[in-house]
């Protein structure tokens, strides 16, 4: 299945959870916020939230800005 993460398409052999995706991206345990198809997925649900084919995922964090 294919998932679009931060605008980039990525292929996965099987269904993944948000937590597994973050792990794969090297972002496990990092302070990030996740949105799937423009809906927030709270941190408490990362472990259980299953991603589906063609989901659009945004992973964001805080950076310097004015």
């Amino acid at each position, binding site marked *: 299945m294919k998932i679009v993460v931060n605008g980039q398409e990525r292929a996965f052999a099987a269904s993944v959870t948000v937590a597994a995706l973050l792990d794969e991206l*090297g972002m496990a345990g990092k302070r990030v916020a996740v949105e799937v198809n423009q809906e927030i997925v709270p941190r408490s649900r990362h472990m259980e939230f299953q991603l589906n084919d063609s989901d659009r995922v*945004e992973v964001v964090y*805080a*950076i*310097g*800005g*004015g």
Partner: protein
Amino acid sequence: MNAPVNHASDALVIAGQAYSSRLLVGTGKYKDMEETRRSIEASGAQIITVAIRRTNIGQNPNEPSLLDVLPPSKYTYLPNTAGCYSVDDAVRTCRLARELLDGHDLVKLEVLGDEMTLYPDIPATLQAAEILIKDGFKVMVYTNDDPIMAKRFAEMGCVAVMPLAAPIGSGLGIRNPFNIRFIVEAATVPIIVDAGVGTASDAALAMELGCDGVLMNTAIAAAQNPVLMASAMKKAIEAGREAFRAGRMPRKQYGSPSSPLGGTFF
């Protein structure tokens, strides 16, 4: 002996929270994280703005994050919606920020209308503010220097109104002090000049006009020596505030001697 000035009684209160510093600073455009940290520290600011952006997948995973360098336990984070040109983008950004910061609901709302001037899109800002306030956010709103709009934003429940002094990042200073004054005179929530300040005297002027605070980023980050400018801004804000509270002398057209006219021996 001079009576000590009671700073404790002059806190800036935003959404029920008291702050001793009236300088709010952005964290963008610095050379590196260390310069960011030192400048913010020198500014004495307690409220700092941050942007919410996509993580750079696969890039520098060990680079220190802003949240490590400027811990939210020490600073009040003010996530902004910089770069948003639509209601949806601004609302999404605020919701992501709230999730990122564990339910922190104080946000700086800006919905831009034009890439050249970075002026706010007021109808879109109003719409976004309404959605966000209903959703439980405490909205500090970036707006133009229109007194009628400032009043409207306060009435609808924004916790602070933040008129621009000049376009974002322009450093042109307060272009319309009379409008800022009108806004301050009618204010029911804190008025914070946001954007356009270029140097210390601009910040002092904003405070002398009676503003409750000033939010700036480029004026510090783009200075030749950002840490020194941050320190200058801290003093300018304090000096301007004290001058406002002291009440300036009336302006006169002609000279008026400061020494007694009587008792001269010449």
